[in-house]
């Protein structure tokens, strides 16, 4: 038998080296996930020392079936899917386009790569504040610009669908840098000989893209689509910072936060309901799981087809 790491105790060295990572994963990721699943069947408040009772499926029934609130929850779920669709498709398309542009041998391309990636570094709070100030309706830059045309900048505090659309736009602005970088890395792995061969064969730019670039970007496409879908389904920070808890704008991620930390009524005296919020988290997890696995299945089949 050939042992890569030798015989005796050294044979176990790879497992020992993996152990810290595995332990870290269990403590930081798997443990809390399992705890959330258990919490979802309780009336936990998240307050240390408070009595926790087993309530079975009551939280799930309340979330999905109880009164008008359950219909509002399902609306939030639908809104989450709408948010996911627009963020994923636009961020994916824009990220690819920008990556292709900054992959050209242009003057100042490193500056533009940095510029497009910069919002990622800022973090959600700064991202939200920047846009709140930019869109400030009484003297903000956008308000001054729109005033030239007799229009107003009441976006984030205006009708819910307008505020919601702006959060989509800002989410894309905030995260497009990651999509761009992944595509850029993918583009740089494509051998230049393939482009030269295509051009010698007389291919036009579209044919070069569709027959060379696009198929060879498959790993980047798969990564970006998966990350964009999961990231947008779980989004909530920008909703909190930009518009707060407002009817007609909540997505599931924010609803979970607001419910868990007693912010749903807009009152400072509402209750902490982390057991109930945990049940909503599990529903969101199932949504991410189904969408993520379906996407992965489709993408893997596509990749296999291309490799044939």
């Amino acid at each position, binding site marked *: 038998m050939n042992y890569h790491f030798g015989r005796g105790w050294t044979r176990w060295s790879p497992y020992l080296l993996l152990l810290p990572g595995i332990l870290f994963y269990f403590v930081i990721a798997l443990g809390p996930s399992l705890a959330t699943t258990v919490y979802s069947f309780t009336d936990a408040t998240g*307050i*240390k020392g408070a009595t926790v009772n087993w309530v079975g499926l009551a939280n799930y029934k309340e979330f999905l079936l109880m009164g008008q*609130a*359950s219909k*509002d929850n399902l609306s939030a779920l639908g809104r989450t899917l709408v948010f996911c669709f627009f963020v994923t498709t636009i961020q994916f398309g824009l990220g690819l386009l920008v990556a292709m542009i900054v992959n050209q041998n242009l003057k100042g391309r490193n500056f533009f790569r940095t510029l497009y990636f910069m919002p990622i570094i800022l973090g959600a709070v700064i991202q939200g504040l920047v846009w709140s100030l930019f869109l*400030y309706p009484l003297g903000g830059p956008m308000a001054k610009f729109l005033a030239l045309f007799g229009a107003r900048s009441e976006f984030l*505090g*205006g009708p819910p669908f307008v505020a919601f659309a702006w959060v989509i736009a800002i989410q894309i602005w905030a995260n497009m840098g990651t999509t761009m970088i992944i595509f850029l890395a993918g583009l740089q792995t494509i051998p230049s000989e393939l482009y030269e061969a295509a051009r010698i064969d007389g291919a036009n730019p579209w044919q070069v893209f569709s027959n060379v670039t696009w198929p060879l970007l498959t790993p980047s496409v798969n990564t970006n689509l998966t990350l964009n879908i999961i990231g947008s389904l779980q989004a909530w920070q920008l909703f909190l910072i930009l518009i707060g808890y407002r009817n007609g704008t909540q997505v599931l991620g924010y609803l979970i936060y607001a419910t868990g930390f007693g912010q749903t009524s807009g009152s*400072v005296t509402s209750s902490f309901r982390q057991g109930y919020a945990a049940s909503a988290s599990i529903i969101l997890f199932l949504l991410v799981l189904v969408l993520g696995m379906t996407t992965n299945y489709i993408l893997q089949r596509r990749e296999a087809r291309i490799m044939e």
Partner: protein
Amino acid sequence: MSKKLYLVLTIVVALSMLLTACGAKATPTSQPPAAEKVTLRVLVHQNPPMVAFMEEFNKKFQEKYPNITVDMAVVNANELSTVTQTRLTANDVDVVDMFGFANGAQPYMKQVDPPNWQQLIDAGLLMDLTGQPFLKNYDASAIQDAGTYNGKVYEINLGRVSYSGIYYNKDLFTANNVKVPTTWTELVTACETFKTAGIPCMTAGGKDGWPIFVGAYGLLGSIYPDQAALVEGLWTGSIKWNDANSLVMWERMQVYARDMMEEGASGIAGDAAPGRFASGAVAMFPGGTWYGPAIDAAQPAFKWGYIPFPGSDNADDNKYLFGKYDQGWVVAAKTPNKDAALLYLTEFSDPANYQAFVDAVGFIPTQPTAKLSTGIGAEVAPYLANFRVGYEQYWIAPKGAGQFANPWATYFKPFGTDDDPKTLADKVQGDLQAGLNAVK
């Protein structure tokens, strides 16, 4: 060789620890020990005049007690309950500024969750302050109504506020020859006059949402002056959000949101609104009494008045100010700095310090010896006999109620999507009824 080295090092470390321990015991006890250094962790919400006062108070407190360092964290009001919960749970805070020691579940309410302050007490996270000497400085009624649970005192309430009034710009009223309104019709006429003169009628912090609907609580109060009865009526079905009285309220709320609020109000943050009003550009500003000091701080020479929201056409219905017991101090039950925390509350409760506090924040005092000496105090003094606890302090929504089950002006355009009072009234009642049916 290395094993020997480890052995020697281990022995040295063990001996050092032993000698240190012996040395500690050997410290003479006849001398009083120097006061222990303590870092007192205090959590407050963002309210600029209050934060400014607290910073000054902390400075003086630290000068008086040099062994205590106050580490004060300031968070947005919307985040206070979240941060309170997490920091109390982590035992990472000693003294907390807590809102809304109210909203207790009433016998007619079914399947409601206890409010967060009650959850914190039940979990044993708040200290029982019963019998502390500084409690005697406060009104017994304030301690009872806004600090007591199951016969024990957990909070000292720092003052009452009204949120159902309107600030008005005296110079603009004089310059445009507008009489201070005492009825709804007069208010509508005043707004039309200002708008005709190119002056926005009202402003408020629409970006935060709540300043718009809280600003209209006076309108709600003029229609339903007994707000405890209103809440009971809504729960028991004797009052509906789409009955004739309520429909009048919705119609007026639409006028308030659509016609009275200035363009762009939806983008103004709650704590920026007083500055906007103090700039003198707007005629009126519906809001709580806590804004008074912020207006003065923004423009000390600015002349303003404060009146109850005239929501009814009968002036007698508009004489009430609705409000609540505002913030109070609670102490973490498991604080390792109990003595310092109680000292902090004792110092704060000293009548001179408390007077400075209410002067700074514009609260209606809960210490009987304190005077209403602020500008806002002088404005509300004539209405104090008609002060009533407002709807928000009584209401707990039934589980299953929809997101529209509230009397909020923000449902109307431009803040929301609704533009028909009757349709909205039916929707609001429908959302409430769904909850009432679900908990039957």
